[in-house]
C-alpha cells in the first residue's frame, strides 16, 4: 500500500446543534450576598444583605439584624441603620470623597465580614448618549431592527479606566382612547376627569451589569458602549423616551469581578467553555476563607447624563415605531341613559369620550384600551418636559 489513491464520499450530512437540557438539582446552598455601594453622591447610601435564592424560588431572603459600618482611611466611621428588613442605610446627607479609602465591615450573626480598603477613583465626563438605528442579531439567529443607545465618555488618562453603568429609563404611554370621563355606578354620575387616563409614564431601572474599560487603549475613552437596545416593536420609542444614565468609576478589580459574574451568566455552549463556579468578590469572612460571600463593596465616583428621545429623532434613519390599533375594534357606543346597565355588565370598562348628537352617547372601551395606569404611573416625573 505504498501508493494509494483515496477517494472519500460523504453520504450523509453532519448535524450538530444545541437543544434544551433538563437538569434537576435537588440541593441548594444558601450563600450570603452583600450588595454594597458607596459613592460621592450626597444621599443615604445602601447596603443590602440577603441570601441566595433556590433555582425555583423567586423571593430573596433578606438578612436582618446585621451591624454595618464603613471605616474611612482617616479613622472615622460611617454607620448604617437597618431601614427595612435586610436594607441598611447611612444618614441621608453622607457623601464619599474622591481619593479617600473606605473599608466595609459587617457582622452577620457570628460572621464578621470585611473588605479590603477601596479607594474612590476620579471619573471622566460623559460625552453623550445617542441612538443609532441598526439591525441587532438575536440569540435565535434572527435580527431585529431598532435603536441602539450608545455612550461615549472621554477623559484624562490618569482617571479611572473602568466603569460601571446603570440607567433609569422612562417612556410616556399615550393611549389613543384614554378615558376622559368617569362613571360612578353607585350614584349614576357621569363626570369629566381632572386628569384623563391618556398619558402615563413607565419607569424601569436597568437589570444587568453594564461595564466597560479603557484599559489597554491609548486614550481613556469609552467609545460606542452599548447601553440599551429598543426594538421597533417595543413601547419605548412610540412617544417620548428618557434615559438617565449613571457612570460609576470602579476599580479594575471590581471590573474583573463584574466581568466574571457576567460571563458566568452567559454561555455560548462552545467547545471551549470555561470553568464555571462561585466567584469571590472583595468581601470575606474574617478568620475563615472557606466561607464564600457573594457580592462586592463598590466605591465609586458618579456622574450622570440624562436625555430625552422622540421617534422623530430617528425617522430619517428609517426607524418606524410599530403600533397596533386593535382597540378601535373594542370600542362601543352606549347612550347615556343606558350607562348604568352597561357598567353593571362590564364594570371594568371606561368611558373614552362623549361623542355624537346630543345627548351625546358615551364611547366606551375595555380598561386595557382606556386606562394608561395599567401600564405606568399617571404622575409626570419631575424631569419630564
Amino acid at each position, binding site marked *: *500500500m*505504498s*501508493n*494509494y*489513491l*483515496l*477517494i*472519500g*464520499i*460523504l453520504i450523509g450530512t*453532519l*448535524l*450538530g*446543534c*444545541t*437543544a*434544551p437540557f433538563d*437538569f434537576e*438539582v435537588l440541593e*441548594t*446552598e444558601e*450563600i450570603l*450576598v452583600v*450588595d454594597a*455601594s458607596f459613592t460621592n453622591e450626597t444621599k443615604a447610601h445602601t447596603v443590602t444583605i*440577603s441570601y441566595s*435564592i*433556590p*433555582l425555583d*424560588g423567586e423571593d*430573596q431572603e433578606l438578612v436582618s439584624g446585621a451591624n454595618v459600618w464603613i471605616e474611612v482611611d482617616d479613622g472615622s466611621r460611617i454607620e448604617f441603620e437597618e431601614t427595612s428588613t435586610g436594607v441598611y442605610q447611612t444618614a441621608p446627607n453622607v457623601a464619599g470623597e474622591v481619593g479617600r479609602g473606605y473599608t466595609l465591615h459587617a457582622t452577620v450573626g457570628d460572621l464578621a465580614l470585611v473588605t*479590603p480598603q477601596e479607594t474612590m477613583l476620579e471619573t471622566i465626563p460623559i460625552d453623550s448618549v445617542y441612538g443609532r438605528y441598526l439591525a441587532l442579531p438575536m440569540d435565535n439567529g434572527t435580527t431585529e431592527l431598532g435603536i441602539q443607545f450608545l455612550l461615549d465618555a472621554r477623559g484624562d488618562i490618569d482617571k479611572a479606566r473602568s466603569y460601571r453603568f446603570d440607567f433609569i429609563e422612562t417612556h410616556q404611554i399615550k393611549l389613543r382612547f384614554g378615558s376622559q370621563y368617569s362613571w360612578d355606578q353607585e350614584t349614576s354620575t357621569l363626570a369629566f376627569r381632572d386628569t384623563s387616563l391618556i398619558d402615563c409614564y413607565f419607569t424601569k*431601572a436597568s*437589570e444587568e*451589569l453594564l461595564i466597560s474599560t479603557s484599559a*489597554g487603549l*491609548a*486614550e481613556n475613552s469609552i467609545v*460606542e458602549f452599548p447601553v440599551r437596545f429598543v426594538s421597533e416593536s417595543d413601547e419605548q420609542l412610540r412617544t417620548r423616551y428618557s434615559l438617565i444614565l449613571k457612570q460609576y468609576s470602579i476599580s479594575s*478589580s471590581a471590573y*474583573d469581578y463584574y466581568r466574571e*459574574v457576567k460571563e*458566568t*451568566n*452567559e*454561555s455560548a*455552549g462552545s*467547545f*471551549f*467553555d*470555561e*470553568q*464555571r*463556579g*462561585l*466567584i*469571590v468578590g472583595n468581601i*470575606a469572612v474574617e478568620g475563615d*476563607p472557606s*466561607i464564600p460571600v457573594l457580592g462586592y463593596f463598590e466605591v465609586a465616583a458618579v456622574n450622570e447624563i440624562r436625555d430625552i428621545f422622540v421617534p422623530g429623532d430617528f425617522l430619517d434613519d428609517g426607524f418606524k415605531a410599530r403600533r397596533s390599533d386593535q382597540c378601535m375594534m373594542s370600542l362601543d357606543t352606549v347612550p347615556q341613559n343606558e350607562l348604568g346597565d352597561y357598567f353593571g355588565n362590564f364594570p371594568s370598562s371606561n368611558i373614552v369620550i362623549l361623542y355624537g348628537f346630543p345627548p351625546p352617547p358615551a364611547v366606551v372601551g375595555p380598561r386595557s384600551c382606556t386606562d394608561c395606569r395599567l401600564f405606568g404611573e399617571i404622575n409626570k416625573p419631575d424631569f419630564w418636559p
Partner: protein
Amino acid sequence: MIKKLLIIGLYSIVLHAQGQSRADSVNLLEHIAVLENQGYQFFYKEDWLKGITTAQPNVARDDLPSYLRALFATTSISFHQEGEHIILTDNTPIITEPAIASFLDETVDQELITSGYVFSREYDANSERPEDKTYEVGSRNLFTQGGETTIAGYITETDSGNPVEGALVYIQSPFIGTSSSADGFYSITLPSGRQTLQLQSLNMKNTYREVIALSDGRLDVAMDIDVIALNAVTVSADREFNVKSTQMGLTKINKENIKIVPAILGEADIIRVATTTSGVQNLGEGAAGINIRGGKADQNLFLLDGAPVYNTNHFFGFFSVFNAAAIEGMELYKSGIPANYGGRLSSVFDIATKVPNKEKFSASGGLGVVTSRLMVETPIGKNGPSVMVSGRATYSDFVIDQISNSALANQDVSFYDVLAKVHHRWENNDEFSVTAYRSFDRFKLSADTLLSFSDYSYTNEVFTANWRHVFNEALQADFRVSHSRYQYEIKYDELASQAFTVDYGLRETSAMANFDWSMGERLNHNFGIESKHFSIQPGEKRPAGQASIVLPDDLEEEQGLESAAFFSTQYNVSEDLSLQGGLRYSFFQALGPGTGFVYGDRGPRSATNRVAEVSYENNEVRATYHGPELRLSGRYSLNETSSIKLSYNRTRQYIHLLLNAASIAPTDNWRISNEHIAPQVADQISLGYYKNYYGKNTIETSAEVYYKDISNLVDFKVGADLQFNKAIETSILQGPGRAYGVELSVKKNNGWWTGWINYTYSRSLIQLDGDFPEEVINGGSYFPTAYDKPHYLNSITNYKFSRRLSMTLNVVYATGVPVTYPVGKWRFKNSENILYSDRNAFRIPDYFRMDLGVNIEGTHKIKKLAHSSWTFSVYNLLGRDNVYSVFFNLDGEFVQGNKLLVFKDPIPTLTYNFSF
C-alpha cells in the same frame, strides 16, 4: 553471461609461477602454481592473490570444486571452472546459470547472521520469533551491489509441515510479488541487499522475514495457522510482548491498526486509534486533547521523530495534525516511562515518520471528505539519500457548512500540514535523517459564540535532525537536534475602534545524545543527556486596522532551560526475572530578563496585593528546580504464559498548558515554571498481571492497577482570564492531585474475528486548598477533575466474512464528564445571577457510541497491476445524542439549561482506496 566471462577473460592475466606449500598455511600464488602443475589452467590478476595466505584445505584435492571453495573461503576470491580452465575473480560472483535447482539441493545456505550486519536494536537473540531474526540468503562472496537475487524455497505450516498453497510472497517497495505453488514452492527475484519479505496467506497468520539477499539462495518459511490474513488486528506488535517484555503500559500502533479503526469523516488518524486502546480517553467529538490515566491533556509528550509538537489538533480536535500517510507507527508509554523520555507527567506519544522510498520514485495521493493529500518519495542517485514530501489540506468548507445549527455552522475553517524528510543510510549502517514539518490552522467564528474573539490561526513548525552512529556491535548512539515552534494569532474586530490581534509564540530548541550499550544478552544500558531551551512570547497585542485606538502592548518574554542526564539498565536476571532500573535527573532554570512580582503574605496573589517588583537581567536565574526521576520496572514470569510486572516512575514537568476548559482551545498557551509556578511532579506505581492463552488462536489478557500522586497540578481560579494576562500567577492555582484505576484488557489477535475490549475504572482528583477565599475550591476537599471518567469501555471487533469482506465494529462507553451546575440564583445591583454548585459536582449524561466499518477488497490476483478496496463506515451508528457539554443561560429570572450535541445523527462515509 558469456559476455561477462569474456570481459573477465580479457582483463585476466595469465601467470605461471612455482613455489613450495606449507602444511598449515599456504601462499595462494604458490599453491595455484602447484595446481597448475597438475594440469589445470588458472586465469587471474596477480594483484588479487599477491601476499595472501590461506589455510590448507582439509578436503581431498580430487574434488576440485570443494577443494577450491575451501581454499578461497576466507578470501574475497570467487572461482568458476570450465573443464580444465579455472577463472578467478575478486569480489565479483560469476553466475553461470540462473538455475534455482542448484541451491535448492543445498540446505546450509540459510544462515543466521550473528555479526557484522545486524545490531542489537534489530537483532534479538532472546526471541524465538523468526520475525525478529535476520536471515542471510546466498553467499557473501557472490553479492553484487545493485544486483538482483532470486530467493526460492518452500512454505509450510508450522505444526504439520504441510505445504501452503497460494501464499503471497512479496516485498513492498518496489512491489514485487509471487505466490506459492501447490507444493508450497515459491521463487522471487528481488534487488539484492536488505529486504523485508512479506508473507500472507488465507488461513495463515501474516508474517515476514528480514532478509539480506546476497545471492541466489533458499529460504524456507513456516507459517502459523490463522484465519485472518489481511488487516490483522494487532496493537502490541508481538505475540509474546504482552507477557515477556519488562515494559508496562506500552501500546504500539502501526499503519495496519490505523486502517481498521472506522475513521471519522473518512480521515484515518493515529491519535484516534490510540483512543480505542486501554486507558486512553478523550472527551468526545471535537474535544481536543487526550487524557491518560487521569492525567491532564497537557501532560502528554507528543514527539514527531523526536521533536515535540505543541498543538496536535486540526479542525477543533476532530483530527490530529499527524498525517497518517507519512507515519510509520507510534509507541505510546503510559507507565514505566523509559528514562530517556522526560518533560511530561502522564505519557509519551513517540511518533515515527516513514523512511522515504529508497528504490524508486513514487507518488500517492488521495481525495478525502475533508482533505486532499499528496505524497512524493524518491531516492536521489544510486545509493544516495531518499526524500519524502507529504502534505494535505482542506479544499472546501463543504463539510463545515453541513454542520448546520451548531457553533461551527457557516464558519470559515481551513488547515494544512506538510512534512518533508530526507534519510540516508550508509553502508556501515550509520543513518542520518532530517524531518521538517509545518501545520497551519485557521478559522473564523462569529464573535458572539466563542471567547469573543473572531479570527484564529495557529502554526506548528518542527525541524529535527537525527544521526545514528554505530560504534560497534555493542554500542550505538543517536544524536539529535531539534527545533519546535508553536504560535497562534487571535483577532478581535467587533468594534473597529477597539480591534486588536494577540500573538503568542513558543520555541523549544533541544539537543540530545542517547547511547545504547549492549553488554551481552542479559545486560543492556541506555544513557545520555538532553537539553531543552524554551523561549516564550506570551502575548503581543497590536491594534488591527486604522480606526483602532488599542495601544500596542507586549507581555514579557520568558525563557527557561531544562537539562537532564539519564541512565538506565535492563538486566535479565534469569529466564523468569527481568529488571529495568533508570534514573533521570532533570534540572530546570527559569531565566531573565523579566520582571517578577512579589505578593504580600496576607492576601492572595492579586494585582492589589503586590508589594514589590523584581527585575531580572538577561539570563539571570529567576528560579531553579531540579530533582531525580526514578524509573523502575520488573517482570517476573509465573510460567510460559503468564507474568506479573511492577513499575514505578517519577516524572517532572516544567512547562504547563494554561487550559481553562476541559478541552484544549486554540487560545490556550504554554507557560514555563517560574518563581510562582512550581513544576508538576507525578509518582506513578503500577502493577500488572498478563496472561496469554495459546491454542488455535492467541488471546492476550492483562490487568493493570495504578496509583498516581501528583503535586502542583495546575488549575485556575473561577473566571480566570488567561489571555494577555500580565501576571498569570494571579489566575493560577496549584494543588495536589491523585489518580488511580484499573485497566482490564482482552485481545484476540488471530482467527476469523479479532479485536480487543478494554474496560478502565479510573479516577482523577484534585485538591485546591489555598489560604484565601479565591484559592479555595469546594471547601478545600479533593474533587473530580474535569476529565474524570470513572467507567470507560472501548472495543474493536473485526470480523472477516471472507478474504474480501470484513467488518469492524467500534464501541465506546464512558461516564459523563464532571460539570458544574447551577444550584441557585443571587440578586446583585438589580441583576439576576447564577449561583453555581461546587466545582465539578455533577456529571453530563453518559457517552455511548458505536461505529461500523465495512471493508470490501478487490481480487487478490498477484499479477493485477492495481488493487482496490471500498470502505464504508458509519460513525455514531445508533445516532445517539451524545452530549458534548451542557451550559446554562439566564433567561429573565429563569436558568435555562442547554446541551451541545456535535454529531447527533449517524454519519456514513464511503471511501474508495486504490493502490498500485
